[in-house]
């Protein structure tokens, strides 16, 4: 717990290794967006890359799950995402429906299949 040896160290950590390494990407974004207008062709590519990185985050959070979510078996997590997706498609492309049905599938699956 060396990093937490004091209240001061925790606050230093928040700014130096929490805020700055995260926020620098936003500041770089402000710099890169200079001179680009809404219709710029390169933005189609930039949006595609943003979407693909986001997709990677989604897949990694599902497959290599963090914390206590890892105690739910991987096939249950994958099936829950798939069931949520099907609910989204079937119920008027509703984000809320997809999230609620996916969550219910996870909880039911965990109760049924967990050791």
């Amino acid at each position, binding site marked *: 717990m060396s990093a937490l040896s004091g209240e001061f160290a925790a606050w230093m950590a928040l700014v130096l290794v929490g805020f700055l390494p995260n926020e620098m990407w936003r500041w770089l974004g402000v710099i890169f967006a200079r001179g680009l207008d809404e219709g710029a062709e390169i933005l189609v590519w930039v*949006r595609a890359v943003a979407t693909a*990185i986001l997709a*990677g985050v989604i897949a990694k959070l599902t497959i290599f799950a963090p914390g206590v979510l890892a105690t739910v078996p991987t096939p249950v997590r994958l099936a829950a995402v798939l069931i949520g997706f099907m609910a989204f498609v079937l119920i008027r492309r509703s984000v809320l429906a997809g999230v609620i049905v996916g969550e219910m599938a996870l909880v039911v699956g965990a109760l049924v299949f967990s050791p």
Partner: protein
Amino acid sequence: MSCDAPTSTLAAYRAGFMATWTSVFSYVLFGTYIGIGALGHDFGFSLVWTVTATLLVWAGPAQVILISALGAGASFIEVAVAVGLSAVRLLPMVVAMLPMIKRPETRAWKLVLPAHFTAVSLWVEAMRLLPKVPRENRIAFCNGLGTGYGITATTATITGFYLAAKLPPLMSAALLFLTPLAFLMSTLRNANMLVDRLALGLGLILGPLFAYWQIGLDLMWSGIAAGTAAYAVHRVREALQ
């Protein structure tokens, strides 16, 4: 400057703020940050520290990494690298959003706050709602959205911090599961063009593959590879039409 400009800026800010009440993301954020508040409590951080982290970091995955890695005693360098890698996605999001809200005469400092508020929640809702907002009001609208989400997340962080001891493990797991589900559904809803759908599909496959192959900076490279491939298909299809 016309005399009604301040009023309409304020009205746009309020419209953005009110939009958060009907946004599914408010509920998702609430659940997610209950989980994060509980995590902060469990790893021995103070309430003020955890709430400040919510507002300063303003990105769920980065905050989860920050709290769990620091709490587990990782070195500052390790934590900084892990947080920085998880946040690469913010760069293309900011680059894609700012041209929608700025005007040629907009000063860069006015874009720092909307850029700070940029996270998946605000990005997805801004891309969906901004086209209906007059351009001169879009910065205020984004700041209103960001304020609304910030209040929601702060309330949830405090709630989660105090609930921590009472949360059953399955409930905590379900709260952590909100992030991938909500990210997926909202990205799907915003993906109206073929290029965005392809980028989503390819990213879902390449992301875990690159991680499995232990390629350094896996998220960045899989994102660039999948995004560029989707864009290439888009260009070829346009050229053929």
